[in-house]
């Protein structure tokens, strides 16, 4: 499903965020990505979503080499991914409902079908009652869950989560991990970046550890 082959990523300015990274994630796997702050976790996730491009090596997602994809094809790749951003990236000029419906509008769903799907997604993250609220009025954990709802509303086959439990207390974190577990059970491929030791120990699956941009074995 996801394959990295000798990937290097150098940011403008010369900093090497990823060095010779190779790994493979099979369809339906749930994998945790961990490492110190600045180890390159977000960078690695960004490469999968083609938000950044590798300097060398190949990143293959769903059988397509991202590095060679023309930019016109990127949107269609991204529609198969559910992205949960470290900084949420919610829009504060509209309600929770309108934030979550955005991916469906982009794909051109009609009103009735979108509303149904949005409510199902909000129900899953326990925010059905807050659909009319502006996300700015929500707590950090609730915002995180809106972000998850937006990522899953389009029923992606791959979910990439960047610190989905960052700054959350253990109860919230457990809730969210429970949600991910349920996706894992229905066959979604998950890659979760986190440095929350507690979570990793509790849910222990396959672990990828980054250190200064290099994958530890």
């Amino acid at each position: 499903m996801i394959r990295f082959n000798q990937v290097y990523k150098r940011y403008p300015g010369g900093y090497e965020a990823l060095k010779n990274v190779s790994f493979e994630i099979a369809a339906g796997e749930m994998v945790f990505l961990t490492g110190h702050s600045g180890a390159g976790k977000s960078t690695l996730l960004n490469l999968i979503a083609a938000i950044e491009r590798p300097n060398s090596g190949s990143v293959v997602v769903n059988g397509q080499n991202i590095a060679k994809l023309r930019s016109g094809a990127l949107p269609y790749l991204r529609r198969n991914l559910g992205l949960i951003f470290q900084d949420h990236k919610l829009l504060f000029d509209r309600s929770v409902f309108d934030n979550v419906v955005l991916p469906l509008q982009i794909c051109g769903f009609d009103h009735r079908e979108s509303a149904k799907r949005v409510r199902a997604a909000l129900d899953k993250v326990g925010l059905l009652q807050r659909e009319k609220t502006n996300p700015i009025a929500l707590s950090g954990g609730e915002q995180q869950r809106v972000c998850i709802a937006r990522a899953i509303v389009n029923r992606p086959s791959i979910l990439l989560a960047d610190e989905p439990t960052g700054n959350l207390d253990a109860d919230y974190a457990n809730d969210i991990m429970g949600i991910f577990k349920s996706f894992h059970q229905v066959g979604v491929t998950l890659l979760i970046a986190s440095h929350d030791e507690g979570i990793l120990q509790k849910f222990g699956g396959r672990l990828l550890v980054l250190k200064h941009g290099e994958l530890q074995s």
Partner: protein
Amino acid sequence: MKIWLIQHVRVLLFTLRRLFATPLSSLLNILVIGIALSLPMGLYVLLQNVQGLAEQVAGTPQISVFLSLDSDKEDVTRIGKQLKQHEAVGRVEFVPRDRALEQLKQTTGLADVIGGLTQNPLPDAYVVHPNKAGAQALEALRDELQKWPELEHVQLDSAWAHKLEALLKFGRMAVLILAVLLSFALAAVTFNTIRLQILTQRDEIEVSKLIGATNAFIRRPFLYFGLLQGLLGGAAAWAIITVSLHLLNGSLASLAQLYASSFMLHPPSASDSLTLLLFSAYLGWLGAWLSVAQHLWQIEPR
């Protein structure tokens, strides 16, 4: 196909809502576009009217035929008859050489010079009014008359029409230059409006791209906005011109009465009006497209 249609209808409604969300600035923009467009378009309409008037006035041009100096009374009457019988000739007017000299004295102020002449240098002449207008028929008639041996000189009085034509050409050129310059200005107005809109929607654009929006999807609402604003601006220009013509016709009516004529300014034709609307809508679209393209290019990852 259905998805495509739904998206477009949704964007159109969204655009209308956005236009009405800021009524004052939308109105001002539309007015600016309307006024700027009404200048070249109004000039064009005036030119069209002048041309129509000129064709009306110059509709019956004349041919002057001059007899040779040595032709006598008999020749003169014979030629007069021949001319009248010619099928292409409507009316014939005789200008005797004495009267021509008299006119020359009065109109040119050369009385002294002419008074000193011992002999009238002017020939007898006929002014021929052809019964068919049109440059080709006229020139054919002139060429034929030129072959008559008794006629010294045949002159088609089309110089006036040529001068007018040249003047109109000049006018049209001026309109064209004005139109081109103002078109740039209009595209720039839309460019800037859209740029400001984009600035307030940076986050939405960024997030939309991250979750799979195509560039076309991002562009669409802005293009609709530019198109709609341009269209309304064109409609404003049309309204400005029509109302102005109406007002001008009001004052023309009293003027025309004094001169016992019935000259009226005609509004732009249907096809000219349509062209105006389409062109201004296109300019709006173009300004918007350039604006979004520039932004998308800026945020493209490299």
